[in-house]
């Protein structure tokens, strides 16, 4: 008996409390920057694609919804020829972002992705690529890596010495 009265009392109290229900979609929810929603591909500080087509995100993805094909430009810079995410399978776990060594793939605070047709949830690189650096400004993988690309020769990456001349006899 007492417990019933207690319950009714709690319910009555809640009637005067602050409402949690949000009048979505008239009223938008506030999402934190680290919210894991729609995935994007970002660009490096020079405005080039950040993704180097390393396949780590696709390997990390527990539902295998990322696929891509690596290719290279004429200077040896590797990038994805295509990059596809099947959002109808994605579980927004963020493991791809964790795996990405270049900060290219990022989850964003946007979950408004409902589509009447499933095929519309298949995003290609053109749909994923944004024009900025996203959450992690400043990082430029190719400036750190040893690979030679356009406008960055051997020895010009961060913390690198001039390439050696192996025909020189001096130690």
């Amino acid at each position: 008996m007492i417990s019933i009265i207690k319950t009714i009392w709690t319910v009555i109290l809640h009637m005067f409390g602050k409402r949690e229900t949000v009048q979505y979609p008239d009223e938008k929810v506030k999402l934190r920057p680290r919210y894991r929603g729609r995935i994007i591909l970002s660009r490096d500080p020079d405005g080039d694609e950040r993704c180097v087509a390393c396949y780590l995100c696709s390997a990390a993805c527990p539902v295998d919804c990322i696929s891509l094909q690596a290719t290279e430009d004429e200077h040896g810079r590797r990038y994805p020829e295509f990059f596809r995410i099947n959002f109808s399978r994605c579980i927004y776990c963020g493991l791809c972002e964790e795996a990405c060594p270049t900060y290219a793939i990022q989850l964003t605070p946007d979950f408004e992705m409902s589509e009447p047709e499933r095929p519309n949830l298949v995003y290609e690189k053109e749909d994923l690529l944004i024009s900025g650096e996203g959450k992690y400004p400043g990082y430029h993988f190719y400036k750190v890596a040893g690979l030679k690309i356009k406008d960055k020769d051997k020895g010009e990456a961060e913390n690198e010495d001039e390439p050696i001349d192996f025909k020189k006899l001096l130690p």
Partner: protein
Amino acid sequence: MVTIYIDDKSYEVEKGQNLLQAVLSLGLNLPYFCWHPALGSVGACRQCAVIQYRDEDDKEGNLIMACMQPVQDGMRISIEAAAARKFRASIIEWLMVNHPHDCPVCDEGGECHLQDMTVMTGHNYRKFRFKKRTHRNQYLGPFINHEMNRCIACYRCVRFYRDYAGGKDLQDMASHDYVYFGRSEEGILQSEFSGNLVEVCPTGVFTDKTLKKHYTRKWDLQSAPSVCHHCSLGCNTLVGERYNKAVRILNRYNRRVNGYFMCDRGRFGYEFTNSNKRIRKPIFEGKVEDFDRDSAAAKTSELLKDRSKVIGIGSPRASLEANFALKSMVGEHNFYSGLSARENKLARKILSILRNGPARPASLHDVETADAVFVLGEDLTNTAPMLDLAVKQAIRNKPIDDIQQIHIDRWNDAAIREYLQDEKGPFYLATPSWTKLDEFAAKTYRAAPDDIARLGYAVAHALDESSPAVEGLPDEIKTMAEEIAGALKNARQPVLISGMSMRSEAVIEAAANVARALCRDDRKADIVYTLPECNSMGTAFLGGYDLEKAFEDVENGTADTVIILESDLYRHADKTQVDKFLEKCANLIVVDYLKNRTSEGASAILPAAAFAEGDGTLINNEGRVQRFFQALNPDPILQESWRWIRDIMIKLDDKKAEKWKALDDISDAVLNSLEGINPKIEIAPSANFRINEQKIPRAPMRYSGRTAMYADKSVHEPKPPDDPDSPLSFSMEGFAGPRPSSLISFFWAPGWNSVQSVARYQQEVAGELKGGDPGVRLIEPGDHAKPEYFKTIPDAFKPRQDEFYFVPLYHIFGSEELSNEAEAVSELVPDAYLALNKRSAEKTGVSSRDKVKVSIKDGQISLPVKIMNSLPDNIAGIPVGLPGMNYFELPAFGKIAK
């Protein structure tokens, strides 16, 4: 067997090996870099350190390099001791000081031994604050990509390339921190085995350039065990697939066949499967049709109804199943093997020699362990490349055997090489012109095929008086024959190597005589014959008439309809003859995967599956029957040739074919049809083989992208295709544990993502695969056979006035049909030429690069002259199979005109 104690546990291990080998054979983990099971130890990298204790009471111990320490009875060591672990972690840390931040863009990533070892030692954060030394890369040709920054200076590459494979143009240069592995000048790597650098180098310095074109990580490849289709040796391979395209070939370890290595033709030739010469749709009367299998078969069968006589031409590059299906369809009396009369005769002669014994058909591994080698007529580097590599190992055996008294173990590579310097065992080589193996030979003999055969006969006679003697032999040849006979006689395991490439029956018989003479007095000898194509031996087993007879049949109207299976007749017969034949055929039906001159005017062309897309069985030169499995599931209109033939047979109401539902059915039928073969042998587990009721996966566990790969076409993921032909599944699903050796589709073990994981699949390091090496030998002659000697000794070569004697020459890149269509290989295919020595050229009044008209019998061709001084006088060389080259029945006399 000796007992050793590792971390206080006792283990029984084989004597005579080093500690690292023993530890790995026991399945324990110990990091290493410079040691390689085939290359031995040099103790350069210091990565394999363990602690050795004097006795039970010793708590301190000494740090030793496991790869340099022979196992000893009662030895006590620790892998886990803190000091050893710390030492190993610091070695990696040092190696990583200059290592670039490249893994995401490095083709080795995911199968990198350095990554594996780094994880194994636990080194993870870089403390070094100073600058990294960098290198410039070199262009090394169409096969290998160079990225020198990633080098850890383990010296494996040069040890393989120079010491093991005899290459010269890759070397270590400069000193200490600057040490560089490359060529003195950039340029195409000259070794035929350069592709092995991809697997030998534990880092991403040398990577596969053909894979780079469509780079895919190892974990994303759907792979299948396959057998190389580019020569008769049948090296075991792994084909990797992604997005329905074969993207690379890796070596598949089989101790008896190719061991750890393979040649570049085999590794990079696969690109023909992606060539734009592929036939991908049925073509009827020159029109590409969008038919399905059923209507294509129906339409083809229309062409075969009410025909006076249908004949079938098989192929030495098609599987046993395909040849057998065609033979069953047209009937034994209308089946042609696809070989010319000469080829047929030679292939069958070889088969009968091997069957009659008593010399054993040697595997590649047997050649590697031989201690005396005599080659008759074969330019091995170009006709059977892996035999070249095997011979290079064999010539070290005698000197190594001889120094047993100084007690250096065989694996102690640096010490042995230092001690032996350039010393070589007995190796004799008789060929018409210079070969790359010359410099390794004790003596070479340059002569026409008939004279080569005479030398062989003379050697046999020197070994055994009762074998026929050669009349009128010059003294120097007689002495040479005696020297060779002496060397072979004193050998523990002599091996004779000959083959079809000289197209000379006499040479083949001479080699058999030497082997037979050697086997008298209960000695043992091995013999190897090379054949031209991957299933030439299978063709010899299956039989079939000569091509010339097919030409006659059509010429005189007994046959009007011809089915050609995976064959370009222009590679087996004279151009004018083939032209006439094709012209005369009322109906030409071709089943093939590459377009060629033969199929140009066909009434029907059916698209066949190439080796990466279909299964089948081949017999290699040694008589080893081996199964290859498809790696990818092609467009449904592509199917194995035997299935096309079956479908047509069914349309024609041929009841036999209805039974051939899957590969096992037809492959059993083939075995049953072969004379003298036990039909019960198991080439590979049958399609209903299961482990724990599961299939065996083609793809590794971490295969990715399944729900996105084809999502652009449909979001409803298709069910992985069924495979009625094998116990392999087209996915990562299935039994993840140990699998039968013939079903290995990738090498991987926990902690071992690189090819080094092969050790986990072997019974012991560098030993047989667990469950036995795949493949079944069909020819085991037994020791007691005493076949007669061959007696038809040819006359010595006599030059003719105003004529030249033309002999065939071969090119590893260029003489083989399929690899010529591979993009990277085709870059290295030379232009056709005519080879003459300087004297002959002067006599004829021509000089290098002049165009001359060559006429041999009815055939003519115009070729630029190339001076090749190693050719004897009056002998001219014709390269076989190069693009633009015609077929000539060689060796033969002919004329050269300006």
